[in-house]
């Protein structure tokens, strides 16, 4: 079974999804239980990735390779290193919570709804373990289909606008990547990521490729200024869609930078690192201020996601100058590890924040901040969770939100004082927008009759929020297992950055 572990992780949920479709729209209860069983099974199957992985080696493991499209030398080639495994297990873990979380929130075409989430899970796992660029691209694009469906069918009143915007952005981004990949294939005669990384490339093609990848992945992350699809998509998406979008799909952008931009175009990445760093810093500050004035909770958290994901791109690209100019490998590793920890942490924290908003929305059918106030009076347990996740959102030590930001800021200081100072501004602006939200929604006296009638979270909701809380605290108090999982893989990546391909 170990030889085909990754395939199982991809195809089990997809098969489960089709099984749910086959149940028909009238068997909602069965569809839910089926989806839950499949999601739990997938999560259990993903655990051997952690236990059987040789973290000290840090190489690609659990390899599967089969001929796929012989005519163009493309292979069904899967494998996972520490970086992939962290993201795959995040995916399988969050999917279980999402299936539990959406239990009661949708009553229309339930089987199709859960099917979309299961198919999505399989495709996302595929993205994180594809070692063949074409296979990666298929998963990367295919993943969008269930997400469009989730937003477009079960979304809010402006779902068509949001879906269209989402579609335009991502399609625009990925078409450049496809052209870039085709170019690379024609140069290397292979889609193998390792071969593409070893391919000698002049500075000009590297620069073109770098920008092709940048557009594709920057939209996914999303980076300023291509972030405006995210708030709209979140606002219109149903809760489960938002959780998956924030917790996992955004990570694909960061993952893409690590797997494609850095190894394939290291020289161009170094040359244009300043641009990505500048975009990241603008995101931290600009988006922080924009988040401050949002009136819709979901938009606020969506903007806060953009600001937090900026630490991912900052940590990744700060590493280039550190290792190639200053020869400071330790700091480069710290930056990339920080970026990875930030991705995992954001998976928990943003997933939890969107789940919390979902809990409120299910009761009040409003996401507007002004409709709330004094929720702690009627929902004390919910308030406790909300405050915990808010603290994680503003990077309080002891929560996972601190770890990644801390590592990235420490690494940035080694490159430049001002980069660190601008990034550290998140301490202030992040606290400002998060705590102001807490103040307006949670604290205070009961503001209206609707709030007065609120019921505290039930057991199912407590389970979801409790699981997120446990992970947030675990990673915050003891990140070593997570950093250890990725350490050797990150070190390989940093070593690879030293290779000069041009000229």
């Amino acid at each position, binding site marked *: 079974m170990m030889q085909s572990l990754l395939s199982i992780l991809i195809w089990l949920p997809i098969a489960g999804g089709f099984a749910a479709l086959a149940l028909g729209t009238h068997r909602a209860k069965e569809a839910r239980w089926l989806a839950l069983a499949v999601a739990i099974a997938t999560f259990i199957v993903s655990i051997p990735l952690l236990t059987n992985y040789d973290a000290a080696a840090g190489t690609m493991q659990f390899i599967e390779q089969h001929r796929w499209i012989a005519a163009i030398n493309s292979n069904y080639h899967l494998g996972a290193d520490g970086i992939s495994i962290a993201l795959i297990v995040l995916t399988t873990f969050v999917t279980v919570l999402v299936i539990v979380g959406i239990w009661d929130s949708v009553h229309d075409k339930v089987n199709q709804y859960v099917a979309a989430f299961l198919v999505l899970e399989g495709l996302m796992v595929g993205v994180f373990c594809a070692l063949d660029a074409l296979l990666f691209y298929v998963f990367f694009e295919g993943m969008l289909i269930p997400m*469009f469906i989730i937003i477009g069918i079960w979304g809010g009143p402006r779902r068509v606008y949001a879906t*269209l915007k989402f579609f335009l952005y991502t399609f625009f981004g990925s078409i450049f990547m496809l052209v870039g990949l085709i170019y690379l294939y024609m140069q290397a005669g292979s889609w193998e990521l390792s071969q593409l990384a070893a391919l000698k490339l002049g500075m000009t093609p590297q620069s073109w490729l770098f920008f092709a990848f940048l557009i594709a992945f920057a939209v996914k992350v999303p980076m300023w200024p291509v972030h405006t699809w995210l708030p709209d998509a979140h606002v219109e998406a149903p809760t489960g869609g938002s959780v998956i979008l924030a917790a996992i799909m955004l990570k694909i952008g960061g993952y893409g930078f690590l797997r494609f931009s850095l190894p394939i175009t290291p020289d161009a990445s170094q040359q244009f690192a300043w641009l990505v760093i500048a975009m990241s810093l603008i995101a931290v500050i600009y988006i922080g201020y924009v988040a*401050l*004035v949002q009136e819709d909770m979901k938009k606020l958290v969506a903007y806060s996601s953009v600001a937090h994901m900026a630490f991912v791109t900052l940590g990744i690209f700060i590493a280039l100058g550190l290792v190639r100019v200053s020869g400071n490998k330790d700091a480069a590793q710290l930056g990339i590890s920080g970026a990875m920890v930030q991705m995992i942490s954001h998976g928990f924290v943003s997933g939890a924040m969107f789940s919390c908003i979902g809990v409120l929305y299910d009761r009040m059918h409003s996401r507007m901040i002004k409709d709330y106030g004094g929720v702690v009076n009627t929902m004390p347990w919910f308030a406790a969770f909300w405050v915990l996740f808010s603290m994680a959102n503003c990077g309080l*030590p002891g929560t996972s939100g601190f770890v990644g930001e801390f590592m990235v800021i*420490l690494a940035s200081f080694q490159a430049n004082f001002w980069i660190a100072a601008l990034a*550290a501004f998140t301490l202030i602006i992040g606290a400002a927008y998060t705590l*102001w939200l807490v103040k307006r929604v949670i604290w205070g006296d009961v503001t209206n009759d609707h709030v007065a009638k609120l019921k505290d979270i039930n057991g199912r909701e407590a389970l979801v929020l409790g699981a997120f809380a446990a992970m947030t605290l675990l990673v915050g108090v003891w990140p070593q297992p997570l950093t250890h999982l990725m350490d050797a893989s990150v070190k390989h990546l940093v070593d690879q950055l030293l290779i000069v391909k041009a000229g």
Partner: protein
Amino acid sequence: MQLNPTILLIIALAPLLGAIVAGIFRNQVGRIGAHTVTIAGVALSCALSFYVLYQLVWGGAQTYNENVYTWFQVGGIDAHIGFLVDRLTAMMMVVVTFVSLMVHVYTIGYMAEDDGYQRFFSYIALFTFSMLMLVMSNNFLQLFFGWEAVGLVSYLLIGFWFKRPTAVFANMKAFIVNRVGDFGFLLGIAGVLYFFHSLDYGYVFAHTEALSGKTLEIFGGDPWSAATVICICLFVGAMGKSAQVPLHVWLPDSMEGPTPISALIHAATMVTAGIFMVARMSPLFELSETALSFVLVIGATTAFFTGLIGIVQNDIKRVVAYSTLSQLGYMTAALGVSAYSAAVFHLMTHAFFKALLFLGAGSVIIAMHHEQDMRYMGGLRKYMPITFITAWIGTLALTGMPGFAGFYSKDAIIEAVGESHRWGATYAYWCVLLGVFVTAFYSFRLLYLTFHGKERFAVDHGHGHGHDDHGHHEPGHLEHEPHESPAVVTWPLMALAVPSIVIGALTVGAMLYGDYFGSSIHVAHAEGEGAHEFQGWLSMAVHGLMQPPFWLAFSGFLLATYIYLFNPAIADKTKQALYPLWNMLDKKYWFDPVYQAVFARGGIAFGRGLWKGGDTGVIDNVLIDGSAAAVARTAGVVRWLQTGYLYTYAFAMILGLVFLLGGLWWVVRG
């Protein structure tokens, strides 16, 4: 001999366990269970802290410095959770756990009628854990951990009465202002890692030469000394936590929290974390004269100017709060002249007498049914003798009456600042000297307005309002006569009164003139401190009677006595005569409205501009919707999307994918 690591773990974790039980299982354990479990935890910590202190001072134990576990290890950089327990730490542990224990007991009485009883105990026990992690840390990371954790608990406790709009504003303000300090602090820590490649105290303090001659380019072409940059950054953190000007604005507002936490967190322990931190990092601060001068000027400014505000306050807690700001300024000024042991010594004496004063104020507030305005008090001495006497003891200690605890520590600070030749020392000397007069004046004003003079409240019998709501009655009207607080309140007062009198005399020899702190504190060039022979605590007190600080305090006492005991009308006349000055103090130098206008409203306006102008205006309207509209027009996508059938979408997408792959195949083949 080595300290037992298990004991250290128990000291830290016992309060945490109490907090978890009282917090999560609050309904199961009930009120009695909650206070029993938290008090037991903190009492255990306190007893073991005394034991650790005993072991270090008399038992011949070595300084303990070990890691508990690895927090992360990435490349060659690692961070740990671990304990460094030397005499400085042990002193802090004793102060923190002792004051915390007193506050726990006191809370039984103070919060007796509150619905959030268990929650409150959970928070203060959690605070004790966080504060212990902070002081026991052996590295910068864990220090920051504790630093932010105490900030979190402070946030939760200031907003404890979450229905009050003022409380939930104050806690947000406190957190954000503290974050401004933490911003600097984090950069300082990043700087330490950059130059030392380690975050462990032991390594960093043993290799301070790594900073010598190193520079950082902050503003183009003009390199700064790395030591100066790092120390100022770290000190900015201390300015936030220890409420130094201009980051002091959160502390007076923190009085929105229940009084026990004002005593514990916002007077005795948390706010002194900044002082402790700088003292702990004395080997670094000694590398930069510039940074120390900066510390000195900030501290002295805080000491004098925030004390002045205390004179015009009418809320009993706010007077004590401004007094706390001012005393923190004294400690900071002492740090600035390298008198670290004097600063820490004052930290300790202040912890006892300021906790006493706050708890005394709380006792008064209970008696007055949550009325805090001193204008409606007066003459309480006959109703509550224990509170009255202990408040006098606290006041005498605060004002530096020779023989009392505060005398030894404050005198040492004034003397050290006076003898310093550091840049800014002359200004600082005048600030701390005149501050003594101010301290005496507002302290005795508080005593007289509260306990002496005429009763300015009326007792309305027979109005059965009940106790359910705090602060909803008319000012100056009580339902029944004020009476002394219960034993759980008065016992902690008495227990704190004892060290407020004697702790200075007992420890001054060892802490200031002996080598109590040993290698915990490092002073490069001893200035003033230690230059004099120690003559014994009694002769110091006698000598103190002839020094300017005593006479300044005495004049403050006389003036307050004259105005508030014998001629109250003069207070109003002076207020009229010096209206601009009074107004400036009443408005607290306009810090709050300016911050509110510039940072809060300015930030919101800025954010709105970016949102409406940048995101919606430029990116969405022009770039995205423009192209979306074009697509929609040509392809009729909107109508197509609205069909709503899952298979339509899926089919279209898959078709697109197949088309792309087919095209690709064709390209490659051709």
